[in-house]
C-alpha cells in the first residue's frame, strides 16, 4: 500500500530519513540538528517519570510546531469513601509531543491508555497536573483560571458520538452561532451569514440552518459537529474518534471532508483513534500510547513500516487484514484442517 501513499501538499523532505538510524536519535523534538525550533527543551533529560524512552523513529518535520506538550501528566483522584483511602490514577504520564502546522498527529491506543484525557488537556477542558502545553509557541496556563476567548478559539474539538455531542433542543443554526456568540463580538447578522457559509463548506445545505439535530443522519451530524468546531477559525482541531461511530461509506466521506478542510484552512489535526487503517490513511505523525505513556512515535511511514515496540506490534497483529493474500491463506488453512480431521474420522 505504501507505494500509493503519495500525498499532495507535503514537502519533499517529508520522507527523508536523513540517514539517522532509528533508535539512534534520542533528542526530543526529533529534528535534524540545527533545524530545531527555538523552543528546544534543554531541561528535558531525566524529567520523564516512568518507564524507558519510547521508541522514536527519526522524524524530519518540526520547524513550526503549532502545538506542543512537554512532560504532560494528569492525575485523577478516585474513590475515597468512608472506609477507603483515595487512590490516584495517573491517566497521562509525562507525555511529550509536537505537531507542525498543517499536519496530523495521530494518537493511537486502546481504552484506558489516556488518549482522551490528553485530548481534554489539549482542548483546554482540563489542566494538566504537571507539564507544559504550548499553543503557537506560547505556554498555556489554565489552572485556576478560565482560558481567554482568544485562546479558546485556537483549539476546538470534535467528539466521537455525534448523537451525544449536539443539543437536541438547539437548531443547527444556533449550534453553529453559539461559539461566535461566546467568543467574538460579531453582530447577529454576521454570525448568521458565517453559519450559513460554514454549512455549505462542510457539505450541508443553507436550508439545514433551521432544522434540529435529530433530523440528520450520523454522518451529517458529524459534519455539523465539525462545522461548529470550525466557526471560530481554530488553528488546531482535536478529533476524538471522529469516525468510529460511522458506517464505512460515511466514514470515507467524513475523512475526505477532513482532508479537504485541512488543506483549505491549513488546520493542524490531533487525530485520536484506535483504528489503524484509518490512522494509516490520515496521519503524518503517529504516537502510540499504553497506560498513559507514549511507547512509540514517529512518522507514519516509519511506524507502519517498522513497528518496534511490542505493544505496537500486538496492535498491528490484531488489526484485521483485508488483503486477498491473507484471506486466501486463512481459507486454505481452514480447508487443510478440515481435510485432516476428516482423514482422522475415516481412519478410525
Amino acid at each position: 500500500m505504501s507505494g500509493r501513499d503519495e500525498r499532495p501538499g507535503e514537502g519533499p523532505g517529508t520522507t527523508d530519513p536523513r540517514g539517522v538510524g532509528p533508535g539512534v536519535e534520542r533528542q526530543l523534538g526529533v529534528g535534524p540538528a540545527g533545524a530545531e525550533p527555538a523552543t528546544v527543551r534543554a531541561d528535558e533529560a531525566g524529567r520523564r517519570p516512568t518507564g524507558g524512552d519510547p521508541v522514536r523513529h527519526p522524524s524530519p518535520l518540526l520547524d513550526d510546531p503549532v502545538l506542543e506538550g512537554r512532560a504532560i501528566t494528569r492525575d485523577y483522584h478516585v474513590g475515597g469513601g468512608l472506609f477507603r483511602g483515595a487512590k490516584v490514577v495517573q491517566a497521562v504520564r509525562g507525555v511529550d509531543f509536537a505537531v507542525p502546522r498543517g499536519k496530523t498527529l495521530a494518537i493511537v491506543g486502546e481504552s484506558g491508555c489516556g488518549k482522551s484525557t490528553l485530548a481534554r488537556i489539549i482542548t483546554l477542558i482540563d489542566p494538566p497536573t504537571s507539564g507544559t502545553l504550548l499553543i503557537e509557541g506560547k505556554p498555556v496556563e489554565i489552572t485556576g483560571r478560565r482560558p481567554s476567548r482568544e485562546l479558546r478559539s485556537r483549539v476546538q474539538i470534535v467528539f466521537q458520538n455525534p448523537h451525544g455531542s449536539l443539543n437536541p433542543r438547539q437548531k443547527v443554526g444556533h449550534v453553529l452561532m453559539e461559539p461566535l456568540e461566546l467568543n467574538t463580538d460579531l453582530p447577529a447578522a454576521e454570525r448568521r451569514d458565517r453559519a450559513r457559509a460554514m454549512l455549505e463548506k462542510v457539505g450541508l445545505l443553507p436550508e439545514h440552518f433551521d432544522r434540529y439535530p435529530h433530523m440528520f443522519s450520523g454522518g451529517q451530524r458529524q459534519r455539523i459537529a465539525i462545522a461548529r468546531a470550525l466557526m471560530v477559525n481554530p488553528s488546531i482541531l482535536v478529533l476524538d474518534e471522529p469516525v468510529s461511530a460511522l458506517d464505512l461509506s460515511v466514514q470515507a466521506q467524513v475523512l475526505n471532508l477532513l482532508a479537504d478542510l485541512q488543506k483549505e484552512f491549513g488546520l493542524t489535526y490531533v487525530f485520536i483513534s484506535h483504528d489503524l487503517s484509518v490512522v494509516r490513511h490520515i496521519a503524518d505523525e503517529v504516537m502510540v500510547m499504553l497506560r498513559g505513556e507514549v511507547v512509540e512515535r514517529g512518522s507514519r511511514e516509519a511506524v507502519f513500516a517498522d513497528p518496534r515496540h511490542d505493544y505496537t506490534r500486538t496492535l498491528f497483529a490484531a488489526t484485521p487484514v483485508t488483503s486477498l493474500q491473507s484471506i486466501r491463506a486463512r481459507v486454505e488453512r481452514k480447508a487443510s484442517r478440515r481435510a485432516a480431521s476428516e482423514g482422522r474420522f475415516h481412519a478410525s
Partner: protein
Amino acid sequence: MAPVLEIRNLSVSFDTSTGPFHAVRGIDLSVDRGEVLAIVGESGSGKSVAMLAVMGLLPDTATVTADVMRFGPHDLLTIGEDERRAIIGREVTMIFQEPMASLNPCYTVGFQIEEVLRLHLGMTGRAARSRAVELLTAVGLPDPADKLRSYPHQLSGGQCQRVMIAMAIACNPTLLIADEPTTALDVTIQKQILDLLLTLQEKHGMALILITHDMGVVAETADRVVVQYQGRKMEEAPVLNLFEAPQSPYTKALLSALPENATGRRLSTVKDYMDQLAGGAA
C-alpha cells in the same frame, strides 16, 4: 445435507405512524453445519432485523412473511411459543453487541450461566456449578470458579462477552448468531474474541452467523458472505471471491471505501459509486 437454517423470501415490515416501513425485502439465505456465514451491511440494511425474525424476537409491530423459514426440523413460520422457547437458547443462540447490557446486572455471572443449564438441561446444584466452571474455562476466563461469584460490572467488556459466549455454547447449539460481537471492544480484545468464536465453532461443528459492518472482521472470519443494502441482498459469495471479484456495484463501493484501499488522499465513497450507477442508467 440439509442446511441448518434455510430462509427464502423473508420480508419484515414495521407499522409506523407514516405507514409500513420495509426493513427486509425478500431475502434468501442458508447456512450449513460447520460454516461461518457473514452478513455484512451498513446501519439500516436490515441485517439484524432478519436474524431477530429468525429468533422470534421482533416486537408486535413487525410483520414477518417468508416462503420458507426452517431451522433443522422446525418450521419457524408456524412454530408455537413453547416449541420456540425450547429451541431458542438451546439449539439456536445469539450474542449481541453490548456485552455489558446483555447480562443482568443484578445477578452473578454464575447464576446467569447456571440458569441456562437449569432451564434447558435440567441441571442443578453441583453438576450445574461444575459445568459452569467448565464453560468459563472453555471461553478462556482466568479463575473461573472465582468469576462465577462476580457481578457483570466487576468484569471488563471483553470478559463479559466471554461470559455471553459461555452462555451461548452452554447447550452445544447447532447455530450461533453473533450480532456485531466485537464492535464495542478494543482491537486486541476483538481479535481474542473472534479467535475464540472460530475455535469453538470449528471444535463443535456449529454453524455461525456473524452480523457485522466491518469488512476487516469479514475477511478474518467468514467462509461465505452475504452483502445487504437497504433490506435487499446485493451479493452472496465465498469470502475470497467477494474480495477478489465483487460482482455488485455496492460491494465494490464498500471495498473501495476501505481506508487501506485508498488511492492517494481521497477515499471513494459509496455515494460516488451509486451516483455513477444512476448516471449510467439515465
